[in-house]
């Protein structure tokens, strides 16, 4: 007998109160190995206005393509360990920024390799349930064969790409567009 999962409800406008203890925008401590990358962008609504009351949560593998089994986000956390979880609030103009390392490739269900990617959940006032999307890196050769990217029509794939800012590989721009022509690709699973 299946118990149906509890219905999702919006985080509302006051989520800071409960969510701030886990805000984490620097994912990789000084001892973590991997290619450093800062990802910045804006969360925009259907009028092109920044969304000030939202959080992004990210989940990613380490540079070797391994997901952490334990995320000790307290004072005892080992600065050489990589947990791969971040929670990033948007500011008053809908801007967000976090720094991490580029994840390694992980396996796909068909035994091939997925292109390096970061999972993102978006929570906001107005969203009754989270939105799920992915960040990819445009220079990765595995993008060509990535089975998730191949499910998306070519014109929309670019909404998932974290582009270099002024040619700097360590600084990326990646926006979340909730509605309109350039609407970000969101996933259901």
């Amino acid at each position, binding site marked *: 007998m299946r118990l149906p999962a509890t219905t999702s*409800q919006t985080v509302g406008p006051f989520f800071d109160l409960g969510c701030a203890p886990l805000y984490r925008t620097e994912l990789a401590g000084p001892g973590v190995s991997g290619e450093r990358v800062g990802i910045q962008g804006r969360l925009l609504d259907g009028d092109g206005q920044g969304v000030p009351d939202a959080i992004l949560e990210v989940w990613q593998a380490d540079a070797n393509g391994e997901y952490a089994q334990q*995320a000790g986000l307290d004072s005892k956390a080992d600065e050489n360990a990589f947990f791969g979880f971040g929670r990033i609030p948007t500011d008053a103009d809908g801007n967000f920024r976090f720094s991490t390392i580029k994840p390694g490739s992980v396996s796909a269900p068909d035994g091939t390799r997925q292109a390096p990617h970061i999972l993102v959940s978006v929570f906001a006032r107005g969203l009754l*349930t989270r939105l799920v999307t992915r960040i990819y890196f445009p220079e990765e050769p595995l993008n060509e064969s990535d089975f998730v990217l191949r499910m998306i029509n070519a014109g929309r794939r670019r909404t998932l790409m974290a582009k270099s800012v002024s040619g700097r590989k360590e600084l990326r721009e990646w926006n979340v567009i*909730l509605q309109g022509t350039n609407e970000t690709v969101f996933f259901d*699973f």
Partner: protein
Amino acid sequence: MTEFTRYLRVLPGTQPDHLHPPYVSSRKRAPRKPLVYMPYTISEVTGPVFDPDLAKPGSFDLTRQHSGAPLGERIVVSGRVLDESNRPVPHTLIEIWQANAAGRYLHTVDQHNAPLDPNFTGCGQVFTDEQGHYRLVTIRPGEYPWRNHYNAWRPAHIHFSLFGPAFATRLVTQMYFPGDPLLQSDPIFNCVSDEKARDRLISVFDWENTIPEQALGYRFDIVLRGREATPMEA
């Protein structure tokens, strides 16, 4: 083929669509293009696992975070976190936040003309035990106006955020109180067509966990998305 746990698809009518026009804020924020349906990969079936030491001692009791007692009616909220196969979800983090007894959040954006309570913050954390049980002590939150429509008031509620074992099991929801007359006109509560699903968001008065002379008990069980049965388990 790489073998790993997969999670069940949601049951129709039990989870909200992104666009729910009566909830005005969803109109400019809900995506309009169809979501891309994808199979589970290792990325969605793994997720952050938090160390129970993360919750500070006493963070389950929102009535003892300041020098004095908060105003309002003390309540005990307890229940179990289960998956869709009725298995307990052990050692998982629950975060809660809520308004004070007057219906005011301790938040700069909340401009409701009701008093703040210097003895109430409205933020709690607790981990489930081995059997998925949790217990919180707080005060009953007040209702408050929110301008979604003329004379709109949110029913009393507590926000719950849970992780479960995987990215796929992440859930943010709200717990309501039995008999609240504001439920019938609340577009957030009424965001799904399945009446039973809505009713499961309403806590149940809990005599067993009511503490004499001290606090009323409310029970709120939470179900996180469950795993598909694997051939090994069948």
